[in-house]
């Protein structure tokens, strides 16, 4: 049977506020346990929450960016359950009246086509603390530093049809929250976490199959692997005559498998009700207008502009717009050199491999946008060839010069364009390879093409790559045919 995968994602993005959502504690990652847990965060008797304005603003930014309706009245509710990392015995979240309503995000698939993924809602809530399981005499240790960190939970529609689409969607959300400056996107530190709801159904069937939820998958790679594994598990289960049970599962990256979380299995009854310690949050239109005015150009808009303005391919535009920093870098290179295609090639080619090799972020690049743009200018005006440019680039990366011009000058890499000098050099090359010249002249047209390449190679070698390749071609042809 042919199966179709149906995926919906819940992404928890930690908002990059200074303080917690309901208290004035810091939210820095990696602090000593319980040193960022205030009376409110500890759920001390008699303490009360007061909502952080910045968390509200950030949620609104997100809502505007996905074209969602922002609820003019949104309400915090309590989700009641007992767990040691949940100090109050309830999580303050939003249930029936989330701050962000229905919206959407367009993602680019591998083949360059676009797909619209619906976003059901996004709501504000507080994060829980952490249970540490190192052995404290058979006990667990509880650290409540993270308790109360503001989260935006972004819930997608079940519009996603494959693990690859899921990854593309998470990447798009990741790019978006970073563009908006509302989340640092650091998945290793848990700033962006993903729960995947996965089900399968026979192709053509309208109803959804029973879904399993894979909790807390924390890297793009694991999202793809976890989903693929879960899809396979479900298909095999059904084909063997079994049934998928609705449950929560955990992905184990070491074993590349998902397993049932039995401790959370018992039917939970969260007894949601409006939090009586918090009042309805009112969002005025004037506030939204003000927030909208602060929105940066978003990835989708940027992608479209790159295609339109610079004539980039959909794929190139998508790669370059994926992060705000990369896009800014690219645009800065382009501003200097005035050649978007060359700029795109260099940023996505040499620069990307350099950064990948040294595991650097774009804002840590050893070659600045001004340097790269300056170098491309020299390619364009024939001062250097593309091949020489790679040497110049490496020199710049190694800090061997402040600019391409300086490197070219210092290393004597300037392209030779003087025809006289090139001719003299070619004469030497031909004299040194008299036998090959004979053979060439005796050969028929079909074979000559390949043989011609040999002479070009020898000529470039002789000039240490500095001879202008166009001139070499032209003059060489003339001499051989003479």
């Amino acid at each position: 049977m042919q199966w179709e995968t149906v995926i919906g994602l819940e992404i928890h993005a930690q908002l990059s506020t200074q303080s917690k959502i309901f208290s004035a504690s810091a939210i820095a990652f990696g602090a000593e346990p319980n040193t960022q847990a205030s009376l409110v965060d500890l759920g001390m008797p008699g303490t009360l929450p007061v909502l952080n304005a910045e968390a509200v603003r950030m949620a609104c930014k997100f809502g505007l960016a996905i074209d969602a309706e922002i609820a003019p009245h949104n309400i915090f509710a309590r989700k009641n359950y007992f767990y040691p990392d949940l100090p109050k015995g309830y999580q303050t979240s939003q249930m029936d009246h989330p701050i962000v309503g229905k919206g959407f995000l367009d993602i680019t698939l591998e083949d360059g086509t676009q797909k619209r993924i619906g976003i059901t809602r996004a709501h504000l809530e507080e994060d829980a603390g952490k249970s540490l399981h190192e052995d404290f005499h058979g006990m667990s240790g509880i650290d409540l530093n993270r308790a109360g960190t503001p989260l935006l939970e972004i819930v997608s529609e079940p519009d996603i049809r494959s693990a690859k689409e899921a990854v593309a969607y998470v990447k798009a959300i990741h790019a978006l929250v970073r563009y908006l400056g509302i989340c640092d996107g650091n998945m290793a530190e848990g700033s962006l976490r993903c729960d995947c709801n996965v089900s399968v159904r026979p192709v053509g069937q309208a109803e959804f199959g029973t879904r399993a939820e894979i909790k807390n998958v924390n890297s793009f790679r694991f999202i793809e692997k976890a989903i693929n594994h879960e899809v396979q598990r479900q298909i095999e289960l059904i084909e063997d005559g079994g049934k998928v049970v609705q449950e929560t599962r955990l992905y184990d990256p070491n074993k590349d498998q998902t397993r049932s979380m039995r401790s959370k299995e018992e039917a939970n009854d969260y007894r949601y009700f409006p939090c009586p310690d918090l009042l309805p949050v009112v969002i005025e239109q004037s506030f939204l207008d003000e927030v909208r005015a602060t929105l940066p150009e978003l990835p989708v808009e940027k992608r479209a502009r790159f295609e339109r303005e610079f004539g980039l391919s959909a794929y190139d535009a998508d790669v370059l717009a994926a992060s705000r920093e990369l896009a800014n870098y690219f645009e800065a290179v382009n501003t200097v050199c005035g050649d978007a295609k060359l700029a795109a090639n260099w940023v996505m080619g040499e620069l990307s491999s350099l950064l990948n090799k040294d595991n650097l972020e774009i804002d840590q690049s050893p070659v600045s946008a001004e340097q790269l743009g300056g170098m491309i200018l020299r390619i364009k005006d024939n001062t250097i060839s593309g091949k020489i440019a790679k040497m110049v680039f490496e020199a710049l990366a190694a800090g061997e010069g402040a600019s391409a011009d300086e490197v070219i000058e210092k290393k004597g890499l300037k392209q030779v364009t003087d025809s006289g000098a090139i001719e003299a050099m070619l004469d030497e090359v031909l004299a040194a390879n008299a036998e090959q010249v004979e053979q060439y002249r005796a050969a028929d047209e079909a074979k000559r093409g390949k043989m011609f390449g040999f002479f070009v190679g020898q000529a470039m070698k002789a000039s240490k790559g500095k001879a202008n390749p166009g001139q070499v071609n032209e003059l060489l042809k003339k001499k051989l045919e003479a």
Partner: protein
Amino acid sequence: MALERSDVEKIAHLARLGLNEADIPGTTETLNNILGLIDQMQAVNTDGIEPLAHPLEATQRLRADKVTERNQREAYQAIAPAVENGLYLVPKVIE
């Protein structure tokens, strides 16, 4: 709809309240009496009435995003039943 013993056990579990076996019948009866009182509500016509969560119907005030809390772990943990290395200790959490 009177509660039965199993309902009371379920509610007590949700609320994480340990009940003495011997108290369950009495608790069940008392809870049913209270629910009897509460159920008088059902006779009231509330069609078209909006629920009222807060008497004053005010709106939420927002706090400026500033860190003003400082570390007071020692003071806060002085009243904790069990701590070690700055962590609160609980019986092993199994996921």
